[in-house]
């Protein structure tokens, strides 16, 4: 770990101002950043502590949900309105990390957690994401947990988060503030594909702060669920996960939202599956056929080829559960 200074801003404006210094990072719960800093993966010279900012509210109303960026994962997961109105979100959060980590970690930090790729997290290896141009040893290495969708010749690292996958089926919108003011961006546009710049992971500009996440209320959000498949029963990142939200009219699917985790270089929406469900009766054969389309364009390795099979089965199981 390198020495750094800690700045404790008194309001959002001074936080953003402090973050205009080079080599600055915000720190929220610190559950990811501190580990990365200890291992010299992140080497900030200044940390701007978000903890003092009054930015941890959870506001639920008839039209939607607004999570302030410092809301704790555990608080959001347990909030009765979330459990009832956005079950996929609560389930995804409860399937994430451990209770101890969820008590510390914030929803803003969660969106920016970095990949678990073991090559990335060890300075003893080359890695295009950490040192652009140094190479990607994972492509021919230990890549069982790596992505099969959105991969490039430069990086195949999985986006490890669960919450963002749930947000992909909820039309979540992030609220950002930077030196030049505020803007909003859809969750689906927030993360970037690695292409030939895997070190640039989101559209966030230097010093820009996430202030909140807005999630509309809907029938589909109420009828939603999250399935996470993993090697051990708890406290593990997804091998594959599936988020589903269905708007049903009796036995017919009016519209469907389906996304997957553990398989993409970013939280991955599955429009091919959604299209095959829209307007169809929620019969076993329909679900089966639709789930079978998941993973269009997948590019697998010998170690992670099973993920494509597993993805389809996980999507099917999630569809069956939510449609039932």
């Amino acid at each position, binding site marked *: *770990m390198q020495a750094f200074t800690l700045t404790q801003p008194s309001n959002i404006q001074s936080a953003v101002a402090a973050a205009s210094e080079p080599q600055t990072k915000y720190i929220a719960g610190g559950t990811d950043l501190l580990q990365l800093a200890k291992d010299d993966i992140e080497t900030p010279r200044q940390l701007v502590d978000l903890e003092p900012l009054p930015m941890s509210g959870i506001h639920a109303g008839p039209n939607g949900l607004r999570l302030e960026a410092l809301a704790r994962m555990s608080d959001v997961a347990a909030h009765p309105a979330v459990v009832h109105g956005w079950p996929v979100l609560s389930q995804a959060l409860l399937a994430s990390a451990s209770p101890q980590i969820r008590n510390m970690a914030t929803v803003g930090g969660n969106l920016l957690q970095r990949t*678990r790729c073991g090559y990335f997290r060890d300075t*003893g*290896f080359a890695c295009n994401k950490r040192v652009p141009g140094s190479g990607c040893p994972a492509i021919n290495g230990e890549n069982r947990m790596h992505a099969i969708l959105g991969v490039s010749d430069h990086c195949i690292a999985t986006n490890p988060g669960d919450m963002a996958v749930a947000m992909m089926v909820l039309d979540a919108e992030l609220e950002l503030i930077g030196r030049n003011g505020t803007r909003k961006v859809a969750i689906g546009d927030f993360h970037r594909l690695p292409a030939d710049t895997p070190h640039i992971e989101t559209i966030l500009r230097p010093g820009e702060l996430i202030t909140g996440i807005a999630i509309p209320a809907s029938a589909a959000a109420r009828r939603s669920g999250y399935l996470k*498949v993993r090697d051990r029963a708890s406290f*593990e990142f997804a091998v594959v996960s599936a988020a589903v939200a269905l708007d049903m009219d009796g036995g017919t699917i009016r519209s469907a939202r389906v996304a997957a985790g553990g398989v993409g270089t970013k939280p991955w929406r599955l429009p091919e599956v959604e299209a095959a469900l829209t307007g169809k009766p929620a019969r076993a054969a329909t679900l089966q056929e639709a789930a079978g389309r998941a993973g269009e364009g997948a590019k697998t390795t010998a170690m992670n080829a099973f993920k494509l099979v597993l993805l389809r089965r996980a999507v099917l199981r999630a569809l069956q559960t939510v449609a039932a």
Partner: protein
Amino acid sequence: MAMIGQPLDRIDGRAKVTGAAKYAAEFRVPNAVHAVLVQSTIAAGSITGFDLKEASDMPGVLAIITPNNAGKLTHPENVPQAVAGPLLQNKDILFNGQHVALVVAETLEQAQSAASAVRLTYTRGEAATSMDAMLGQAYPPKHFRNGARPPDTSRGNADESFATGAVKMDATYVTPIEHHNPMEPHATIAAWDGDRVTVWTATQGISGVQSTLAGQFGIDKANVRAICPYVGAGFGSKGNTWPPATLAALAARTVRRPVKLVLSRSQMYTSNGYRPRTVQKLKIAAAADGALLSMRHDGFSSMSRPSLGEFAEPVALATEMLYACPNVAVTHRLVALNAALPTYMRAPGEASGVYALESAMDEMAVALKMDPIAFRLKNYAETDPHENKPFASKALRACYEQGARAFGWEKRSAEPRSMRDGNILIGWGFATSTYPTNRMPSAVKIRMEKDARVVLQCGTQDIGTGTYTVMTQVAADTLGIPMHHIRFELGDSNMPPGPVSGGSMTVASVSPSVQAACRALLDKIKDRAVAQPGWGGQSRDGLQLRDGQVVGIGQQISLATLLEHGPIEAEAKTQPGDEKKEFSMHAFGAQFAEVRVDPDLGEIRVSRYVGAFDGGNILNAKTARSQLIGGITYGIGMALHEETLVDQETGRIVNTNVAEYLMPVNADVPDIQTIIVPNDDKNSNPLGVKGIGELPMVGVAAAIANAVYHATGVRVRKVPIRIEDVL
């Protein structure tokens, strides 16, 4: 009431949960500074130079020790232990993650920061990183079992008789590299005073630390003091004295200040051994009635470059003795790689070996269409078939019976995929467990203070297993005084020596000396009594100690009065006798696992578990159960979770943290039923114990793998079994 056998709480429990128990890194040594290791990022080659400019200019830095300036250690031949390096004595790089420098600074943060600023240049050599690619160059170990026996043995003719079998199997099983990952990292504080050094170090063997450091620094053993009152688990990783302990002492000598060196979790993956990867080839043949005709077990285990030492995983020892089979051949081979030196890990040999053996036995039972337990009973060894000796004791049959009854084994339908709960496949699997009973010499000092309280001392360790507690129980029963009047002290090499806490032998080795020391003390108390005026006619042997009184015929005197003349001290040493020549000494057990497998998603969970064990006499039913459920949990990890991943291109480990090196969490562990089959093995040692630290994990992985086969019909011949193996 006798204390031995009671389910007593551990007496150090309160100190541990309140933080009062001091672990090696927690001792406050005045003026201490901090050392941080720098490790290589290539697997083979040599160091051509260091660029220390930036690092040495950083605040607080006191020294950067490299092979260029490190103090010389004496020749490793003076050192009793098996770890020859890396000790910064030369510039060769033999594995990725090897220690190449040590940064010493005033604070931990300064040392860490400077350590990451150390730059070095290498010439790269050719690294061997793939065991499978090197299998053809396997070689026999030179010091197998420290020379106690050859690596290859046979009886009858395994190869010829194999051909005559009605039913046969021939398969290869693979187990991965596993790391111990004890909660407490390796830590040493070293402080010199002239040519005397004191080390507070996390170890399973303070005597080994003492003799290793004495040898390496060329000083007298009496000038090394090793202190370790508590160990935050070791599982074998703290059995040897690994280079970081030596390097802490070397650094302390260099900067002339006490030095503390604590490894990071990540550094522990290349600093203190691991369970080597094994490739095991099994060939078994039986007659149509299930009688075994031939067994062949060829074991290969991965190794470091030979110059670092030697460790061979003794995978096939159980195959020699577990079943009555006339023709058996076993071999052990090493495959040298550019990797760190492997070492003992909980149930070394048996954990990996019995996994393969008991998986193979399950395959045979399936092929023979026999119940797996009936097949074992058909080949039950009444005496040790390899050594041709009676077992000191063996209650394995009772383990099978009691375990099967508790599990409900008779309700099992033999066909794979025949048991379900809705969509979920249910599998029931079984395996035998065994582990040798070991014992080493030990010595104990005892002293009764003037207030009639007793202190015992032995330079043994409590690695979390309950040594403090059970030794106090043994002393209480032998002396006939309450436990709270007794204090058992350990973990200081100034005390009489005890053996390394490994091989499940602490209780078997130390408790006889505790008992003997207590008896010697009682004799001295009685001697003092008969020396009292008016006691002339009494014989010592006729006296009794009761409620604080020494009682003779028509006479009694209180201990308090006797102790007015001063405290009473005694000492005892005990050692194994000829029992090993006469008997084959082993513990046994039966492992039963139920798994639930989601046939679509491939998730495998252990849903029920029963283990029945013959561990000899059980001194404390509660600490014993803790060992049993801990061992079974360790086995669940071996079956389904644990695996160290090595990048084949660079020989560097990819998952050096406990987020990506999976081990079971609570949600993976069902309610475990443990059964202790009563036995008292006085043929093996005076307390009749067998050792239960390693036994409970042996066979667990096989029982689970066999259950996965029963659930899914898929025979997976490697661990950990993953989702994709059963999809």
